[in-house]
């Protein structure tokens, strides 16, 4: 894979990561932040896949699987926390 392609992909993914982190800081409500966290996990999965292509090491895909799993569990946990009556607006 030419280095230019992976560099461009890394740049795009980092830019989107920064934008989502801005949304994570802004909020304004907890569900908004949870959505941002989920998208951050998806972008990190993309970063891991790009890194796996750049270094030609396929084992990084395992990390991507674990990342996706953790993101799903975190989303479910946050949603249950919200519905059972946790902090509403923080």
């Amino acid at each position: 894979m030419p280095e230019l392609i992976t560099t461009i992909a890394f740049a795009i993914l980092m830019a989107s990561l920064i934008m989502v982190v801005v949304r994570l800081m802004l909020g304004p409500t907890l569900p908004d932040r949870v959505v941002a966290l989920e998208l951050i996990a998806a972008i990190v999965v993309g970063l891991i896949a790009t890194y796996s292509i750049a270094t030609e090491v396929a084992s990084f895909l395992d990390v991507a699987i674990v990342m996706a799993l953790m993101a799903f569990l975190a989303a479910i946990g946050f949603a249950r926390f919200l519905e059972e009556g946790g902090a509403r607006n923080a």
Partner: protein
Amino acid sequence: MPEFQSIGEMVAAGTLLLGSLLMFLAAVGVLRLPDLPTRMHASTKAGSLGAALTIIAVAVFMPEIPVIARAAATVVFLLLTAPVAAHVIGRAGYFVGVPLWEGTVKDALAEQYDFKTQKLGSGREGEDEEESGEVEGEESEVLEVSESESEVSESESEVSESEPVAEDSEDSEAEEVSEVEEDSEADEGSEPERDSEGSEGSGDSKKKDVTSEVAEA
């Protein structure tokens, strides 16, 4: 121009860039869109498709059986869990009382829940009653042939609204809650959104308690 060694590399590069651009699109949507459901609309679809495409790029770039198997497992997992997570978060956000965008044209869920289970305590009771009244009017217009039946149903609905004693207490509870809302907003006018949300949340729990008492009775 970059030099590719094979067609597979070209396909992998194309999928990788497409996936990255889709995730960029999702990030722009999450940053720019006005409220929670629209942000989820951006992040869930574009985000999960972008991640799946980047992983497919890995599988195309290294076409070995273990890599393809793991990539396929990851893609299937992503596409299975993204809708579930989005549904759960959206449901939680709606019931917690996250404010919708002020340009929202129609909140169909509010009408549905007010129609079936009397009250949900979402903090917009007045609007709900107006909307349900409109719905009844439309129905009577449609069913002009059976005017007597519609009159009967209207009287029934009036009875069901005024009948139970417990609901009167519920209404007074709601009034108290609205008074509390006004007080809190008057006290701290700096952040009206958050204040109204907080009082909505307390009203939520109070009304849930009342409805559980009614159910026990």
